[in-house]
C-alpha cells in the first residue's frame, strides 16, 4: 500500500458569520454579505486544498470540548440541524457529514498506544458541533469528502497551556502515524481562531463591516506575530511561543 500523507494543514477557523454571509442553501438565515476578505481567503484555500485531491478531511474543533481524553465521531454518517448556541440568528444549518470511521479508529488506537485517553462517539443522536460543521463547509461545501472529527480536550482549562500542548503534540503524532498507515491523502483542519475575545454587543445588522475589528490592538499585534511566524515557516518558534500567545491574546484553545 502507498504510504499515506498529510497533503496540507490549515488553520481553518469557524466563525459562523462566514457561512451566514455566504448564504449557502443549507443555512436558514440569509445576509447581505460581509467578512469578504476572509471569505475570499477561504475560496482560495478551498481551491488549493481540493486541487490536492484529498481522501479525507480531519477537523479538530474547540467547540466539541471533552473532559476525559480525546474523542472521535465513530459512525459512518451524522446528519441533522446545527443551531449555533451563541449566534443562532446567523447559523441554523442542515448538515450531513460522512465519517471515515476506519481512520478515526486508527488514530484513536495510535493515540491510546502513545498514552492518551481516547473515546469513540457512537450515539446516533449526537449533534455535531458548529465549529466542525463551519470549517468543513468552508473547505468543502460539496460535502463529498469523508471527515474525521476530533474533540478538543479541556486540559488547558484545568491545568495549563503546556499540559494541553503536550497532549496535542502526541495527538498530532498519532494522527500522522495513522494517516501514513492508511495510505490516504489527508488534510488537517485546525478549527481555531487566533485571538478570541468577543465583543459582547452586536451591530443591529450583524454583517455591518463598519463595526468589525480585532477586539484590541494588543491582540492584533500578537495575531500578526504568530501569522508572521507561520508565513515564514517558523513553525517550531510558533509552537514555542504558543503558550504565551494563548494567554496574551486570549487565543482559542
Amino acid at each position, binding site marked *: 500500500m502507498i504510504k499515506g500523507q498529510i497533503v496540507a494543514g490549515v488553520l481553518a477557523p469557524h466563525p459562523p458569520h462566514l457561512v451566514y454571509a455566504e448564504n449557502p442553501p443549507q443555512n436558514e438565515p440569509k445576509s447581505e454579505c460581509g467578512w469578504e476578505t476572509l471569505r475570499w481567503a477561504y475560496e482560495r484555500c478551498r481551491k488549493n486544498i481540493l486541487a490536492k485531491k484529498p481522501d479525507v478531511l480531519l477537523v479538530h474543533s474547540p467547540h*466539541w*470540548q*471533552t*473532559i*476525559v*481524553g480525546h474523542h472521535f465521531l465513530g459512525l459512518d454518517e451524522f446528519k441533522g*440541524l446545527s*443551531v449555533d*448556541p*451563541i*449566534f*443562532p*440568528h446567523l447559523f*441554523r444549518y442542515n448538515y450531513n457529514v460522512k465519517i471515515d470511521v476506519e481512520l478515526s479508529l486508527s488514530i484513536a488506537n495510535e493515540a491510546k498506544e502513545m498514552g492518551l*485517553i481516547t473515546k469513540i*462517539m457512537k*450515539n446516533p*443522536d*449526537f*449533534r455535531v*458541533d458548529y465549529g466542525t460543521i463551519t470549517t468543513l463547509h468552508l473547505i468543502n461545501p460539496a460535502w463529498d469528502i469523508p471527515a474525521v472529527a476530533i*474533540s478538543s480536550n*479541556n*486540559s488547558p482549562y*484545568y491545568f495549563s497551556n503546556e499540559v494541553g500542548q503536550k497532549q496535542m503534540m502526541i495527538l498530532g503524532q498519532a494522527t500522522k502515524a495513522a494517516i501514513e498507515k492508511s495510505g490516504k491523502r489527508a488534510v488537517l483542519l485546525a478549527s481555531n481562531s487566533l485571538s478570541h475575545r*468577543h*465583543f*459582547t*454587543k*452586536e451591530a443591529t445588522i450583524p454583517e455591518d463591516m463598519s463595526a468589525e475589528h480585532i477586539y484590541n490592538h494588543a491582540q492584533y499585534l500578537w495575531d500578526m506575530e504568530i501569522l508572521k511566524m507561520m508565513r515564514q515557516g517558523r513553525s517550531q518558534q510558533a509552537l514555542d511561543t504558543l503558550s504565551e500567545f494563548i494567554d496574551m491574546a486570549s487565543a482559542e484553545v
Partner: protein
Amino acid sequence: MSSNIISQIYIVPGLPHILLAHEKSPAWQSLYDSYSKLRQEIENNNEADLILYFSTQWLSVIGYMFQADPNPEWLHVDQNWYDFGSMPYNFKVDTSFSEAYSQEVSKLGHNVKLINYKGFPIDTGTIVAQKLLNPNNKFPASMVSCNMYSEKDESIEIGQAAAEALKNQGKKAIIVLVSSLSNRYHIKDIDPKEDEISSAKDNEWNLKILELLAEGRLEDVSQCTREFSRQANADMNGKGLWWLSGLCGQTNNFQGKVYDYQPVWGTGAALISLTPTFTPIDTTDNINQDNLDPQVKPSNQIFSSRAPEPVGAYAHAKKVGNLLFLAGIGPRERGTKTIPGVTLDKQGKIIDYDIEIQTRSVIENVKIILEDSGSSFEKIIDVQVFLTDMEKDFKKFNEVYKEYFSKTQPTRTTVSITALPTPIAVEFKIIAEA
C-alpha cells in the same frame, strides 16, 4: 420585594450522570433521590407562576439570551457523556415573562436576544434540572443565559432585573440556579462507585459554602464567591451565585436547607433550598446532618432587605425566646448614601439637619424591621432614644414621637450622647414582642 416574587429557591447540579446514570454510583443515586424530594416540593407548590432557570452551562457572548420558544422540543445528547444516552425534552415556556425579563436587561444597556429557533440547543444543565424537577411541565419555565464575560456587578444586576420583571408582571417564581460548586472534573475514567471530590481543598471550600447556605446566608456566599472561585474552581466563577444574590435582594434573609452534597465525576454537586423569610427562623432541624459538616450552626439573626444596611457586623434584629431585640436604628435609607433630614458638605460633615425628618425616618425603619421580623409596631415594649443634642432637639423629637407612640406608649429612656457612628442626630434601640 423578594418575598412577594419568590416562592422558593433551589441550587441544583446539572450533570447528566444524575438523570441518566444514577444507578452506577451511590453518590449519583443519592443526588437523584434528593432531586426527588425537591420535585415533590414543587409538585406541592400551589403559589408559584413559573420556574426561572439560570444554568451555568448556557453560555452567551453577546449580552443575554432568553428562551422564548413556547414549546422547545429536541433530542439532546451531551457532548461528553453521550454514552449515558439521549435526553428527549419537550418544555413549556413562559414566553411572556422571558420577554419582560429581556426588556429589563435591555434597559441596563445589554444586548438581549429572545430565542425562538427550532432546534436551538438547550444546555444539558437546564434539561437535567427541568426533567428532574418539573418533568410534567406543571409550571412553565423561563431560562436566561450566563454571559461568559460577565463579572460580579453585572451578574448581580442581571439578577436584579429578574426581580424587577417578576414584580412588574405580578408573578411569583421558583428560582433554580443550575450550577455545581467546585467544578474540577476527574480527567481520567473512574469507577463511578468510587467517585469523590477531586481535591481535599475543593471539598473544604464546598463545605464552607454549604455551611453558609444552610444558614440562609446567600449574600455572605456572594461576598466570598470570588475567593471560592479562585480556591476551588467554582462553576463559571460563581456567576450563578451572584445572579441569585442579585435576584434575591442581596440579603441573608433565608431559611436554608442542604438536601445533599456528593461528588459527580470529581465536581461538587449539592442540592440546596433557600426559603425567603422575614420571620424568625428556628433552623435547628433544617440540615440533613448525614450529608453536612458538623460545624454548621443555624442562627436566629434577621436581616431585612428593606431596612438600611448595617454599618458593622450585626443583624437588624435577633430573636430570643418570644422577644425581639433590634440593633440601634437610625434614619438612613437602604441603597443610598443620602440621609433624610441631613445636609452634608463635600467632606461629609453636617451642614444642617432636621430632627423631625430624621425621627420620622428612624420610626419608619423600625416599622420595616419589625414587619420583616414577623412582629409589628404595636408590639414594641421598650424604646431607648439616643440624641446627639438634647437641648436643641428634644422638643421637636418628642412631638414627632408622640404622633406614633401615643396609643401604645411603650416604656422609654432618652439619653444625650456625644456622637453616633454616622452623621445622624437620633437613633432608637427597641425591644419588642416577636
